[in-house]
């Protein structure tokens, strides 16, 4: 499964090279053209059958959240800052891979035995944490991990029955969906796939990719938050595992094009594919940048629900993944210029 390889590849924002290499290998044989743009986006092109003169953009981001080395302690510890949003509650006790050699590093905190009263209630701040790679001095640490070195979690991809676990499902799940779509039959329209960089630091790659592609409409493919864990108050789970692909109507980055939402939901209902509407107002995706490209691009986001994104290990259901691929393929097969006519929204 391509998701395994993608999940285990390292690609913190601005340093997506390993993921890029996996994707170039995965799609090259299945597309008519593939190139890497100035930002590092992988742009793949697949001719349509010619029956619809449309340019459709499908985007999934390659980058994941991580850490960057910004300094050193005298005893050889690394000081770090986060690249993208990392919940500081997750960091103590984690195992990291540091730099291009995947040097192991760990984050530990003051032992529980030495905590003063109340001290154990607080989450240590990132500024106070250090990464231990075993270096003995500042000089050795600097040599092994120069300033600007990236680090991320070390997590193997695992199968847990109907579920899989691994790191960086946000958004390697979306990348894997997009690879599956590229490996299938041609659509009627011209397909422009963008595996984007730097989503986690502000949707940077998608912005330039969408400008270059100049699409008639766009779909951002994501791995999104599922908060279906038991809780005290009966509040929305955002999305739930096992309930099918999550369609975004509105999040913090954009309002989805209702015609594309309708295309997805009506296709799902006719074919009996489960789907869910993501709780509005939460999160943001590449669609937030794409829909503002040039004069604007009708856009929508479709996501595989994932528990514990931005953490060392996320979980997703394989049937949600497969249903996302199926829903996308079926909806894209029905997508025509008429879908985007006004009066249908």
């Amino acid at each position, binding site marked *: 499964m391509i998701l395994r390889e993608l999940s285990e590849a390292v690609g913190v924002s601005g340093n997506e090279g390993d993921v890029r290499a996996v994707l170039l290998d995965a799609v090259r044989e299945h597309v008519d053209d593939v190139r890497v743009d100035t930002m590092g986006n992988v742009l793949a092109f697949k001719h349509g059958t010619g029956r619809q003169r449309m340019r459709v953009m499908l985007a999934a981001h390659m980058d994941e959240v991580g850490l960057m080395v910004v300094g050193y302690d005298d005893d050889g510890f690394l000081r770090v800052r986060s690249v993208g949003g990392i919940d500081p509650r997750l960091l*103590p006790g984690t195992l990291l891979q540091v730099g291009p050699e995947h040097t*192991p590093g*760990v984050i*530990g905190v003051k032992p529980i035995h030495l905590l003063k009263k109340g001290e154990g209630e607080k*989450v240590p701040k990132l500024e106070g944490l250090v990464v*231990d*790679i075993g270096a003995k001095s500042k000089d050795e640490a600097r040599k092994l991990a120069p300033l600007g070195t990236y680090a991320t979690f070390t997590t193997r991809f695992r199968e847990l029955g109907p*579920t899989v*676990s691994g790191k960086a499902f946000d958004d390697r799940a979306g990348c894997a969906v997009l690879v599956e779509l590229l490996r299938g039959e041609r659509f009627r329209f011209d397909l422009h796939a963008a595996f984007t960089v730097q989503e986690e630091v502000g949707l940077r790659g998608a912005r330039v990719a969408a400008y270059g592609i100049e699409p008639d409409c766009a779909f951002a493919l994501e791995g999104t938050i599922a908060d279906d864990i038991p809780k005290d108050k009966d509040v929305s789970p955002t999305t739930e595992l096992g309930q099918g692909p999550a369609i975004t109507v509105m999040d913090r980055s954009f309002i989805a094009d209702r015609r594309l939402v309708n295309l997805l939901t009506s296709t799902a209902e006719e074919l009996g594919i489960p789907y869910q509407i993501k709780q509005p107002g939460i999160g943001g995706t590449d669609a937030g940048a794409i829909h503002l490209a040039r004069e604007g691009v009708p856009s929508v986001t479709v996501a595989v629900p994932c528990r514990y994104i931005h953490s060392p290990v996320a979980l997703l259901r394989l049937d949600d993944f497969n249903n996302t691929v199926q829903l996308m393929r079926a909806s894209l097969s029905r997508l025509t210029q008429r879908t985007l006519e006004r009066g249908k929204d």
Partner: protein
Amino acid sequence: MEVIPLLKQLSEADGIAGHEEPVRVFLRQTWQPFVDEMREGKLGSLIALKRGIGSEPRPKLMLAAHMDEIGLMVTGIEKGFLRITRVGGTDRRVLLGLEVVVHGRRDLPGVVATRPPHVLPQDEREKAVPWDKFFVDVGLPTEEVERLVTVGDLISIRREMVELKNRRVAGKAMDDRACVAAVTLALEQLSGVRHAWDVFAVATVQEEVGLKGAITAAYGVAPDLAIALDVTFGKHPGVPEVDAFPLGGGPAIGVGPNFHPGLVTRLKEVAEAHEIPYQIDPIPGRSGTDAWAIQVTREGVPTALVSVPVRYMHQPVETLAAQDVERAGRLLAAFIAGLEMDFMEGLAWEDS
């Protein structure tokens, strides 16, 4: 024996307090070539005897390193998610996002989870997750979870040992498998060495929940002299200077009421004679180690503590310098090799 592969096998074995079987099985096999006999204590401690050559009745030295580790236990099942509590001093600040193994009807991989930060009020995001907000997620449908998991099932931390730079290693159970490794190295070095005393190497159980294995095994062995081996705090930012020891500085020898000064002196002399670097760990009272229990066994046992400095204790990244484990092993072997039949006489207090 290479210390790093040994540490890897020991650290990765699962042996939560009261459930040390996998470690015991490994040690039975590993110690077998080096000892004369082995038995299991009533609570499960592994007690190995390597006979001395002194005339009978031979005095007995007990080495104790605990083989149990901290962990988690299932307390309830809700919507297919497992509620958890801790076994031993598990630190909840390091649990979130950890991979675990739930020892149900079969071993189930899982993840320690809580609600994502974006749905929490700011003050909750800045607090360590309380126990009642943690769940273990095994990714299976509710019915399946209820079939495979029962309240009371154990949950082990899943963490491979990794090798850092400078022969430093990080793993989940260096406390106290590092010292189990040191004892193993000492036994290996003593192969073919003619020592006077009987040596009882004991891998104790249930140290993390109150020194239970040491209390019972020490009664059973009834040693004349004992050395407990445990980990002590390694130096790193955030830890007070006086509480911690640099990695690579050698094993620490405890001083204080828990330890017999005569035995401490001998350990220091042996270290110096063999050019083994060591550090002094002043412990003004309760040492929190097996030594605390062993010292008051039966009519009392002169006891010492040799410790390996470990950073981030009770966290899944317990980090140490492999060299310190090797040195602790050498110190034990050298101490044992030089132990005279009449050593106890020299331990008498000045005024007796």
